[in-house]
C-alpha cells in the first residue's frame, strides 16, 4: 500500500517537475509547480509529517503560488519566444546535470544502509504539538528572527512595488 502510494505520487511529482521546465508559458509552469507541491504534501504524510503537509498546502501552494499567479497575470507575461539558447549553456549544462545527479546518487547509496525502511505511521512525532514545543523552546530565537524577517519582507515588497506618486 505504501509502495503504491509512493510510486504514484513520486511519478506525479516528477512529471510535474519536468513539465515545469519544459513548458513555455509561465502559467503552465505555475500550475505544474502546484502539482509538485501537492504530490510532495502526500509524501510528507507518508513520512509522518502531518503538520508540515498541511503547512505546505496552506502556505506554499495556497499563498505563495497564488502570489506567483497574480504577478504573472499582472505582468501579462506571454509565452517565451523561441530563440537559440546560448551554446555554452547547452553544451555545459547537460553533462553538468548528469554529473551532479550521479554524484548525489552515489553519495546516497554509499552513505545509507539499505535496510532503512519507511512506512506510514513509522514516525509519530510530526504532529502540531511535537513541532510546537521545540519551536517555542529550543528554537525560539530563530522563530523571533524569522518574524522580523517577514516584517522586513513586507516593508520591502510594499516599497518596491508601489506606484510612484507623480
Amino acid at each position, binding site marked *: 500500500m505504501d509502495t503504491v502510494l509512493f510510486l504514484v505520487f*513520486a511519478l506525479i511529482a516528477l512529471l510535474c517537475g519536468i513539465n515545469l521546465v519544459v513548458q513555455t508559458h509561465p502559467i503552465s509552469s505555475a500550475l505544474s509547480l502546484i502539482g509538485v507541491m501537492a504530490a510532495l504534501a502526500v509524501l510528507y504524510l507518508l513520512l509522518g509529517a502531518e503538520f508540515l503537509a498541511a*503547512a505546505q498546502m496552506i502556505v506554499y501552494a495556497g499563498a505563495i503560488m497564488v502570489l506567483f499567479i497574480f504577478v504573472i497575470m499582472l505582468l501579462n507575461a506571454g509565452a517565451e519566444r523561441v530563440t537559440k539558447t546560448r551554446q555554452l549553456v547547452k553544451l555545459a549544462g547537460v553533462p553538468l*546535470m548528469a554529473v551532479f545527479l550521479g554524484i548525489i546518487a552515489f553519495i*546516497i547509496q554509499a552513505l*545509507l544502509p539499505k535496510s532503512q525502511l*519507511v512506512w506510514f505511521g513509522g514516525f509519530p512525532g510530526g504532529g502540531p504539538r511535537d513541532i510546537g514545543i*521545540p519551536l517555542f523552546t529550543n528554537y525560539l530565537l530563530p522563530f523571533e528572527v*524569522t518574524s522580523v*524577517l517577514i516584517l522586513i519582507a513586507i516593508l520591502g*515588497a510594499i516599497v518596491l512595488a508601489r506606484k510612484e506618486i507623480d
Partner: protein
Amino acid sequence: MPPAHAVPLNWYLILSAILFCLGIAGFLYRRNIITVFMSIELMLNAVNLTFITFSYKWKAVDGHIFSFFVMVVAAAEAAVGLAIILTVFKNRKSLEIDEISSMKY
C-alpha cells in the same frame, strides 16, 4: 516491525535529488524571470523533502522545524523577489533574463 510494503528510505532521497536537478535545469535554461523563480521554489521543495526524510531516519523532530523555517523564508523571499521583478518590468518592459545584463564589466 516494518510491514512488507514499506519503501526504502533511499528512494525518497533519490526523488529529492532528481527534483533538485530539475530545478537547476529550469534555472539555467529558462528565459522568463518568473519561471526561473519558480524553479528556485522547486529546488527549495526538494530540499524540504530531504530534511523530512532525514528527520524520519533519526526519529527527531528538528528536521521538521528546519523545513518549517525554510518555508517561512521562502515566503518572504517570494514576496520580495516578485516585487523586484515588478520593478524591473516597469523599467525595462521585458521579462527576458538576458536583457538584465547591465552589471557587466
